[in-house]
């Protein structure tokens, strides 16, 4: 096995007396989808923020592509190749769909201090933005205002913007939320193929998707990783069943 691209070691984060992240260690290796599941309030969103750089950890380290990024902010982590999608769509709503992906391509390209040439006539950027939209199936919506997209389409646009960054690692916070059955199925197929391009740390509530996709699953409860393993191992794990999946045998 190759060195992990993303490695969290003993991360902690407290808000007052609440331990939101409690000694979390996990890794993400090339080619895998590592799902992070857990009940509401388990600390998934906090952990995502600690990984993405929006929230400083109290202790522990975040290593990314062999480099310690614990003390870096969101921007340098993004530049280092962390492609994040948000749980609640975080897009430039006044822009067209294509402008959002072009913004992503621009972020990846750098060179933002250019004041004269129209960016939407910059073939290289527009082509990259368009290609990302095609991959998630939003190409026909390119000229639409982002605010006019449906909730599910915004989720896909989040993924498309992350694609334009050509990241080394995807960090996806509930990409399936609000997609509906067919949409969720299509995105599952897409993510399945995407892992070859870059590994995905996937936070997801849709258990069908998680069990279909994940090479490994980590279960987060009260800020602690109580188990890590394959889908089958997790399904069989008695502590997981008790703490999370519940007695009703939902799975």
């Amino acid at each position, binding site marked *: 096995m190759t060195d992990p691209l993303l490695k969290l070691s003993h991360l902690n984060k407290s808000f007052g007396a609440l331990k939101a992240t409690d000694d979390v260690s996990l890794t993400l290796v090339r080619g895998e989808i590592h799902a992070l599941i857990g009940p509401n309030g388990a600390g998934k969103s906090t952990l995502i923020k600690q990984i993405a750089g929006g929230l400083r950890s109290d202790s522990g380290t975040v290593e990314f592509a062999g480099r310690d990024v614990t003390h870096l902010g969101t921007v340098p982590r*993004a530049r280092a190749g962390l492609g994040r999608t948000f749980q609640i769509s975080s897009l*430039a709503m006044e822009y067209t769909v294509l402008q959002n992906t072009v913004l992503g391509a621009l*972020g990846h390209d750098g060179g*933002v201090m*250019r004041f*004269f040439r129209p*960016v939407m006539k910059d073939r290289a950027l527009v082509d990259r933005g368009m290609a990302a939209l095609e991959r998630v199936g939003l190409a026909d919506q390119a000229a639409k205002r982002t605010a006019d997209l449906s909730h599910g389409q915004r989720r896909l646009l989040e993924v498309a*913007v992350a694609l334009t960054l050509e990241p080394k690692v995807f960090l996806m916070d509930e990409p399936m939320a609000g997609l509906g059955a067919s949409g969720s199925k299509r995105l599952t197929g897409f993510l399945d193929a995407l892992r070859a391009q870059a590994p995905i740390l996937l936070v997801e509530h849709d258990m069908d998707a998680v069990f279909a996709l994940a090479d490994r699953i980590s279960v987060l409860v009260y800020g602690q990783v109580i188990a890590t393993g394959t889908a089958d191992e997790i399904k069989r794990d008695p502590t997981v069943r008790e703490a999370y999946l519940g007695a009703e045998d939902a799975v």
Partner: protein
Amino acid sequence: MTRETLLNIVLFAILPTTALVAFALDEPFIITLATKAAILALAGVGLNIALGLGGLVSFGHAAFFGLGGYAMGILASHAQSYTPLMETPFLIEGTKSMLVIWGVAIVASALAALAIGALSLRTTGVYFIMITLAFGQMLYYFAISWPAYGGEDGLSIYVRNDFPGLNTLDPIQFFAIAFGILAIVLFGAGRLAKARFGLALSAARQNAERVETVGLTPFRLRLVAFVISGAVTGLAGALFADLNRFVSPTMFSWHTSGEIMVFVILGGVGRLFGPVAGAALYILLEHTLGGLSEFWHVYLGLLLLLVVLFARGGLIGTIAGREVAHD
């Protein structure tokens, strides 16, 4: 051609048409009004880069307008009295050359914007408004208490400064200079808004988190926008001082900041030609309503209220509708 493009062409033509008709009818006062509108529009175009594109509600743009004004006043007053600005460590003389004065005004206000921006842009929302206001007022009181350049009374410059090949005291020729600059800056601001920088800056206004996630730093984008914005407003200040042949601390006062903001809001925040529409309308109201009543600001206030309540896109938004997609 979209409705906004058509409207922009009309707006662009209004000032020179007014000036030329006034020239034909031999009404120099009207030409001066058109010149004033062009210069105030320029100040508004500057503010609009920060306010409209960047979402930075600066209530201190009078600082840059005033610095531009005083750059002109100080340089020209020294040239007028044949005294050097300073002798040690090296000699700096005053000047009556507009081109040099503009350069100094742009550099001075850009540097001020860099310093003010670097501090104020660490705050957002109401704190940003307050801190920019505070910087503006600081310069205002400084100008009042600095007797070397007239203090509270301001500075009079007897003859308008020189521009190669033109007689700047001729109203129509000075109008041509002011309008020429406005046209150039409008072109540049239009390009900037559609360029890479504009895309990223406007995205940072809509959603800073999104911009960070793609690896761009909102603070840097905003600081650069603030500097460009301040420099343009500073240039407008130098022209305004030349128009009046007079500089006073009023240029630094928060009323001035408010007025520049009114041009932008009346015309349409973030619209390229918004400040042109706003400044032209302002001057028009000032000289029609102002003739009827000393208290014409009441009507201006009423109009502003209506615009903010019912026409968020300002004049341009009302006529041309929502801004359209990319082209």
